[in-house]
C-alpha cells in the first residue's frame, strides 16, 4: 500500500491553480497546508464502483489521471512518455454552470529518450468543455490531448484506451491494452497518508501494454512497451513539514510491479513506503523498516543537484537493485517543476520504470 503517494500528486494538483496563473515560478508551498473545509472528506470503507469512479469527483479538491510508459522502438532503443491530467476545485460547493464552474484543469505531457527530453503543459477552466473527464464512455481530455476508451473498453480493466498529446516539437499516439483489473491501493482503495488523518482514494492500472507512434521533430517512430496509470483523489493536500519525495514505479521483467517512494521531512528524516503487486494482480504493502533507498549519484539539472541514481534494497524479499536514468536531464520545467523520467534497473531483479523527484 502506498498511502503517502497522494503527496506527490497533491503537490502537483495543489499548485496547479497557482502555476496556471502565469506559468511563472510557483509561489512556494503556499496553500499546500490548507484544510479541506467545505470539500468532501476521504473516509475508509468506500465501495469503489466502476465505471463511475473512473470519472471525476468534483466534490473533492484534487484529482488526477496519471500515466507513464516505458517503451522501445524498432531498433530496441528505450524511451518513455508521460501524460497527466490534474483537476482542482478552486472552491467547494455546488458545481457552477459554464464559466462559473470552479474546476481548473492542468495537464503535462513529456517524452524522454537517452538524447532528448521534451515536455509541455496546458491549462483550462472547467464548465465549458475545453477539458473534462467522463466515466462512460471513458474520456479524459484537455484541448487536443485525450485519453479515451473505445466501444469495447472494459470498466474493470480500464482498457483498451487511446492516448494522445502534442507539444511544439513532439507528439505521441498510443493504444493501451490490459487483461487484469485495476488494482486498489492501500486498504481497499483507502490510502492513509499521515497520522493526522490525511488520506486519498487511490487505485492503479500497472498492467497496460502500450503500442503506437512517438514523433519527435517531425520524425515518427513506432514504439511499444508497458504503461502504468494512477488514479487518485482527495481533499487534503500535503503535510506542512513535508519537503518533497522520491518516487519510483517499477516493471520487473518477471511481470511483478513495484512502487516505492520516500517522503522527506524538514527534520531530515524520511519515510520510505512500498507496495508489491504480483504479476497476477495481488498487492502487498512493504513495511517501512524493510525498505532501503539510497541515492548513488546526482546530476546537475536546472541549477539543482538531483539524485538520479538509486541503490534500492528490500532485504525480506532478497531484492537489491541499482536504478539508472535513461536521461538524467529529464527535468519538467513546467509551471511547477520537478524531475520525472524513465529508468532501468539491474541487480537481483531487472526491468524498467519511472522515477519522480520533487522538492529539490
Amino acid at each position, binding site marked *: 500500500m502506498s498511502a503517502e503517494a497522494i503527496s506527490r500528486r497533491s503537490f502537483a494538483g495543489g499548485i496547479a*491553480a*497557482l*502555476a*496556471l*496563473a*502565469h*506559468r*511563472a515560478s*510557483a*509561489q512556494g508551498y*503556499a496553500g499546500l497546508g490548507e484544510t479541506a473545509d467545505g470539500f468532501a472528506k476521504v473516509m475508509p470503507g468506500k465501495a469503489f464502483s466502476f465505471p463511475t469512479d473512473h470519472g471525476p469527483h468534483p466534490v473533492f479538491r484534487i484529482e488526477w489521471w496519471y500515466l507513464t510508459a516505458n517503451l522501445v522502438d524498432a531498433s530496441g532503443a528505450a524511451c518513455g512518455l508521460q501524460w497527466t491530467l490534474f483537476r482542482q476545485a*478552486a*472552491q467547494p460547493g455546488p458545481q*457552477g454552470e*459554464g*464559466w*462559473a464552474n*470552479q474546476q*481548473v484543469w492542468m495537464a503535462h505531457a513529456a517524452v524522454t529518450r537517452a538524447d532528448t527530453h521534451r515536455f*509541455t503543459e*496546458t*491549462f*483550462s*477552466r472547467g464548465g*465549458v*468543455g*475545453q477539458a473534462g473527464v467522463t466515466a462512460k464512455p471513458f474520456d479524459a*481530455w484537455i*484541448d*487536443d490531448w485525450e485519453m479515451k476508451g473505445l466501444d469495447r473498453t472494459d470498466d474493470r480493466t480500464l482498457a483498451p484506451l487511446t492516448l494522445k498529446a*502534442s*507539444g*511544439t516539437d513532439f*507528439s505521441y499516439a498510443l493504444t493501451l491494452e490490459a487483461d487484469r483489473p485495476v488494482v486498489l491501493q492501500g486498504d481497499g482503495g483507502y490510502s492513509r497518508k499521515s497520522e493526522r488523518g490525511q488520506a486519498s482514494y487511490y487505485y492503479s492500472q500497472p498492467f497496460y501494454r502500450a503500442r503506437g507512434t512517438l514523433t519527435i521533430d517531425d520524425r515518427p517512430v513506432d514504439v511499444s512497451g508497458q504503461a502504468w496509470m494512477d488514479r487518485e483523489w482527495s481533499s487534503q493536500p500535503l503535510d506542512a513539514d513535508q519537503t518533497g519525495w522520491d518516487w519510483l514505479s517499477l516493471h520487473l521483467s518477471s511481470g511483478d510491479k513495484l512502487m516505492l517512494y520516500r517522503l522527506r521531512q524538514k527534520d531530515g528524516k524520511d519515510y520510505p513506503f512500498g507496495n508489491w503487486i504480483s504479476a497476477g494482480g495481488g498487492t502487498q504493502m512493504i513495511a517501512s523498516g524493510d525498505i532501503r533507498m539510497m541515492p548513488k549519484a546526482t546530476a546537475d539539472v536546472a541549477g539543482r543537484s538531483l539524485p538520479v541514481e538509486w541503490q534500492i534494497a528490500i532485504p525480506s524479499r532478497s531484492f537489491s537493485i541499482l536504478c539508472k536514468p535513461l536521461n538524467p536531464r529529464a527535468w519538467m520545467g513546467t509551471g511547477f517543476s520537478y524531475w520525472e523520467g524513465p529508468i532501468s534497473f539491474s541487480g537481483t531483479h531487472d526491468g524498467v520504470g519511472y522515477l519522480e523527484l520533487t522538492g529539490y
Partner: protein
Amino acid sequence: MRRALWILAVLLSHWRRHKMQFATLLIGLIAATALWSGVQAINQQARSAYDRAAATFGGVRTAMLVAPNAATFPQELFIKLRRAGWPVSPVLEGRVQINGRSLRLLGIEPVTLPADVGNAPRLGAADLSSFVAPPGQTLVARETLADLQEPEGAAPAISNGAELPPLRVQPQLAPDVLVVDIGVAQRLLSKPDQVSRLLIGQPRGKPMPLASVVGEQLQRVEPNAETELERLTDSFHLNLTAFGLLSFFVGLFIVNSAVGLAFEQRLPMLRTLRACGASARLVNTVLVVELVALALVAGLIGLVCGYFIAAALLPDVAASLRGLYGARIPGQLTLRPEWWLAGIGISVAGALVAAATSLIKAIRMPVLATAQPGAWQQRQRRWLILQSCAACAVFAVALLLLHYGQSLIAGFGVLAALMLGAALILPAFLDIILLVGQRVARGPLALWFWADSRQQLSGLSLALMALLLALAVNVGVSTMVDTFSRTFIGWLNGRLAADVYISASDNAQGVAIRSWLKDRSEVQGILSGGRAEAQIQGQSVELLGLPDHALYRERWPLLEAAPRAWTRLVPGNAAFISEQLSRRLNVRLGDVVEVPAPGGTWELDIVGIYADYGNPKGQLTVNVAALIRQFPQTPQTRIGLIVARENISGLIAALQKQFGLDDRSVADQATVRAESIRVFNRTFAVTSALNAFTLGVAGIALLTSLLTLANSRLPQLAPLWAIGITRPRLAAIELTKTLSVALFTALLAVPLGLLVAWCLIAIVNVKAFGWRLPFHVFPLQLIELVAVALLASLLAALLPVARLARMQPANLIKVFANER
C-alpha cells in the same frame, strides 16, 4: 596626454575671454537639445500610452479570429478550436454605461490568455482565483477609478441594473477599460455563450486547418504593427516632431555661427600652437574633444530643460490628443534611459554637424597663413548661386511630392521641402533687394548703408533663415488653426439644434423623463436620439440616430446631399455619412454601406455627406427609430428639447430637481457650445506653445548672430566714425539695417506661411483627419506676426547697437592701431 591637456587648456582659455560667445554656443546647443528631446519625451509618452491601450489583453497586437460579419459568435467555436489544437483564448467586448458614462468592457479568460499578448497586464498568480471566483473583480486603471469617483472595492451598477464585480486597480491598464472574467462579461452584456474574438497564442504542435474546424464562420486577423490610434495620431506626432526638428535646426544655426566665429578668432591661436610644435593631428583631436565635451555638458543641461518643457507641455498635449483623437495619455511624465542617451547623442551629433565646416577648415589649415582671402564679393556671389541652385532642387522635390505623393508623410515632405527651399533662397532674394537699393541709393551714406547690408548678409543669413522658418511656420499654423476655429464654430452652431440636452442614466429614467416632459407646456418638441457602435471593414464606426424633425432639415448642414435626403432617411434604409468616414471607406453619394447589426447585415444607401469635425471615429447618421430596430440594445438616454429661450433655466432646474440630474446630464445649448469650444481651444494649445517656443529660439538666433557680428564689424564702422559720423548715428544706421533685413525676411515669410497653411489644410489635414476646411486668410493676424518679428529683431539688435552707441572712442581707435 599631458600635452593634449595643455592644448585643451589653451583652447579653452579662449572662452574665458569671450564669455558671450561661449554662452551663445551653449545656448544654441541647449535650445536644440531641449526642444528636440522635450518633444521626443512627449512622443514617447504618448506611444507608450497607445501601446498600453492597444495591448490591453491582446488588442490589435495579437493575431486573432473574428466572425466575418457579426459582432459575436458562439463560444462553442472556441471549444472546437481548442480541441483541434488551436491555442486560442476567448474575449468578449462591449460597452457599458456607468452613471451615464460609456466604458469599454473586456471579458477575458485568464487561464488560456496567451502569455505574450503585448504589454497585457499580468494577473498575479495569487490574484487569479479572486479574479475568477465569485464575486470576481473588475480591473481598472487608476484614472478610470478617479473618473468614476468610486473607491477601490466598490461595485457600481451599470445602466441595465447589473452590478459589476468589485473594482480593483491594475496600473498597466488603459483608461476607460473595465476588465472582467469572460463569464461575468457574458452576464453583464447579456450575451451568454458568445465571444467577440479569439486571441491566438503560441501554437503547440500542429493545429488542424482553420476551415476544417469552423468552416467559414471565423477568419483570421493578423496582428497590426500599428494600432488605429497610432495611425490616427501619427500626423499629430509628426507635427510635434517637425516642431522639435525645426527648433533643433534653429538651435544648430546658433551653434554653427558661434563655432564659426570662434574658429575664425582662434585661427591665429591654432597657427601659433602649430608653430610651437603641436602636431596637426593632436590639435585637431583636441578641437573635437573640446567640442564633444561642450556638447555633453550642454546636452545634459538641454535634457533637463527638455524634461521641464515636456512636463509643461504634456497637459496640453494630452488635451490635444484627447480632443482630436479620443486618445488618452497620462499627464505624468515618465522617461526611459534611452531618452537620456538619445538626447546626449543628438546634442553631440548636432554640435559636430554644426561645427563640421569649421572643423574641416581647421584640419585643412596650413601652418603658414595663406594670402589674404579674395574679395568678399566674389565669395558671396558664389555662395549665393550655389545656395539658390540647391533651393531650386528642393523646390523641384516639393513639386514632385505634391504631384505624386499620396501619403501623410508626402504631405509633410512637401511642407519640409517648401520651407527648406525658401530658407535656402532667402539670402539670394535679400541680396537682390539690397542690390536694387544700392543702385537707386542717393548720397554716400545711403550707398554705404545698402552696400554694407549686403556685405553683412553672409554673416546674418543663417539667423535670418531661422527667422524665416519660424515666421512661416507661425503664419501657417496660426492660419490653419484660425481657419479651423472659424469653420468649427460655424459648424457647431448648426449642429447644436436643440436648446436643452439631457443624458439619462438609463433607459428607464429616459422613459420617465420623456413622459414627464410631455406634460410641460414650455417644451415645444422632444428630440430623442441614440448612438450605437459597429465594425465596418475593421473600423469602429459610430451610428448616430436622429429623429425626423424639421429643425434638423433646416439647421443640420450637409456637404453633399441627394434629392430629398432627409425624407429618404426616415424609412431606415438610408444614411448620411461623415466626411472622414466617406474618405476612409471611399464611399460617395448613391453607394451602399453594409453595417453588421445584431440581426444581420443592415444595408444603407448613402444619401448625404456631412462634416463631423473633431470626431476621431467615422460616423453614419440614420433615423433613430430604424437604429433601435436594428440595434435593440441602443440606450435611449439622449434627449434634446426645443424650448423658448426664456423658459430654459426654469426647465433645467425643474428637471434637475425631479430626476436628480447633475450638470453633466442636463445642459442648455450655450453650455454645450462653450464646452465644445473650450475642448477645441485646448486641442490646439500645444501648437500655440510650440509656436511661441520656435519663434523665441529664432529670436535668440538673431540676437547671437548680431552679437557675434558686432565685434567683427568694428573695422567697418571705425572709418565712418573717423570721418565724422557720431556713434549714436552709427548705431541708428546699424539698427535700421538690421530691422530692414528682418522686415524683408518677414515679408517673405508671409506668402511662404500662407503656402504652408494651404499645405496643412489641403494636404495634411485631409490625410490626417479626413476632412477638408475652407481656406481663410486673416490679414490682421499676419500684420501682427510681422510686427512681432520686427519686435524680436529690434530686441535682438538693441544690445549690440547700444554697445556701439556707448563704445569708448579708444576701442574704435584701436582698430587703426591694430591694423595689420
